[in-house]
């Protein structure tokens, strides 16, 4: 028994215009200052005006949103009393919107209490619309929430199936001018979602198709989107790929690259997509022996010919590295700018965080502490995993 959750997805050119047809009185827009500066909030506001809704803007979400930011936004939400919440931005803004929504509906709760077991009974006060402005996180179609506990320097994986947005608007207009670096970072996030969603121990028939398609779209279109941001086809297909990957991994789960990447993000503040994308080939190599056939499926789907499933694992890891290199992503922690001293000082915390991450145990091969430490050392040095 399992579930497949999805919002209504409105996608393609002019998808944003769907917003003009929503019914309600007040919308609360959760976003960040940069998104507001880029004029995206104005684009949303124009549609809300057409729909006859008042709106209030919370443009204070930071990268890796903190528990404190979520509490602050929820308080403003309670004062404004919206019947629609709009998460506009990358994963940080959308995840913050999801968490604020819960606290708005349930002022008695704290974010850490949001979990997939206890029913939340949302939608008494408001519904959620998500509008991604990057092509990567898939947060617009997932119910997971990643927040950061600043005091403990730790990312918290929270969420309930009820957190799922009612509508996701996937309009390529929002990514048309995305800088190459962010396109690359977030694109690697999408690829990691797609590959992990297919190879995690919770994989299932409903997620397999989306994961395979998203993997192929990313390999095909991410280099083009990074190389030439005006390539409209590449932009739109990558935007779709990220959402499709979100559907895939959001209904199975992400795995070890995310556990390791979350830890890197919390300790070194490496952008999420860059962090998980960096660890992905290492985790493919490590888990490959336990899930070789499924990695071979992916390899075959993206056009890799291999003599055996084991060879397919290695060739797929190589292809991920080639993609990362072609879009100027770091292949090691050294290349990501981490010094040897910083790395050694942080290693115990990196391992501890990853071990506590729920994504770790659903990996096809679950590392112990010593193996995790070794994996981080290999990722630091840029050495393919051979154990």
């Amino acid at each position, binding site marked *: *028994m*399992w579930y497949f959750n999805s919002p209504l997805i409105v996608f393609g050119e002019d998808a944003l215009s769907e917003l003009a047809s929503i019914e309600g009185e007040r919308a609360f827009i959760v976003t960040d200052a940069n998104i507001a500066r880029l004029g995206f909030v104005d684009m949303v506001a124009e549609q809300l005006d057409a729909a006859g809704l008042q709106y209030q803007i919370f443009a204070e979400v930071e990268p890796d949103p903190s528990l404190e930011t979520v509490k602050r936004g929820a308080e403003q939400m309670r004062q404004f009393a919206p019947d629609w919440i709009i998460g506009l931005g990358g994963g940080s803004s959308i995840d913050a919107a999801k968490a604020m929504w819960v606290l708005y509906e349930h002022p008695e709760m704290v974010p850490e209490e949001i*979990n997939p*077991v*206890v029913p939340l009974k949302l939608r008494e006060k408001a519904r959620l619309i998500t509008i991604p402005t990057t092509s990567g996180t898939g947060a617009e179609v997932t119910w997971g929430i990643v927040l950061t506990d600043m005091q403990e320097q730790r990312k918290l994986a929270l969420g309930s*199936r009820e957190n799922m947005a009612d509508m996701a608007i996937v309009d390529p207009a929002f990514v048309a001018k995305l800088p190459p670096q962010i396109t690359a970072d977030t694109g690697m996030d999408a690829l990691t979602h797609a590959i992990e969603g297919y190879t995690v121990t*919770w994989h299932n028939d409903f997620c397999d198709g989306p994961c395979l398609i998203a993997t192929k779209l990313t390999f095909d279109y991410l280099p083009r989107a990074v190389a030439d941001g005006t390539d409209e086809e590449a932009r739109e297909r990558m935007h779709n790929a990220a959402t499709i990957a979100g559907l895939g991994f959001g209904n199975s789960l992400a795995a070890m690259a995310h556990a390791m990447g979350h830890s890197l993000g919390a300790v070194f503040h490496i952008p999420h997509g860059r962090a998980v994308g960096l660890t992905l080939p290492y985790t493919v190599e490590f888990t490959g022996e336990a899930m070789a056939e499924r990695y071979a499926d992916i390899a075959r789907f993206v056009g890799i010919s291999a003599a055996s499933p084991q060879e397919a694992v290695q060739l797929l890891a190589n292809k991920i590295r080639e993609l990362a290199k072609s879009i100027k992503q770091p292949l090691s922690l050294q290349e990501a700018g981490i010094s040897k001293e910083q790395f050694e000082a942080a290693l115990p915390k990196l391992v501890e965080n990853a*071990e*506590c991450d729920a994504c*770790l145990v659903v990996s096809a091969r679950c590392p112990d502490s010593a193996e995790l430490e070794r994996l981080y050392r290999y990722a630091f040095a840029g050495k393919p995993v051979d154990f």
Partner: protein
Amino acid sequence: MYLLGSEEWLNALAEAINNSPAYAEAAKTWEGDFYFIVEPGGNIKEEIIMYLDLWHGECREACVCAERSAKDPAFVISAKESSWHKVIDKKLDPIQGMMTRQLKLKGDMVKIMKAVKAAKELVGCATQVPTQYHE
């Protein structure tokens, strides 16, 4: 073979836990005791209440209780025997089981979600116990 929910089964589980380096490592910071309850149904006329006190990678106490009031554990997980069977056979991930309400949890889910690796190793220990079922 030990009948699920018998003192013998529970003692075998406690022994497996205390002999597992993997569990000791994964649960080294865990502090919390449990009721694992087999709900009535089929050949099980009354609920079976198994108590486990798990502390820093060890099982400090294991016993079958006649009534829920016998102890006051931090966590209570209850399920039908068929669901426990699937968990022990590793056909049902315990976290997935909780998310689909096949395993019903009372207690701090946040704490459980921080200890998913320990939960996985605990299931690994249960899998080692030769188990006979009531059905």
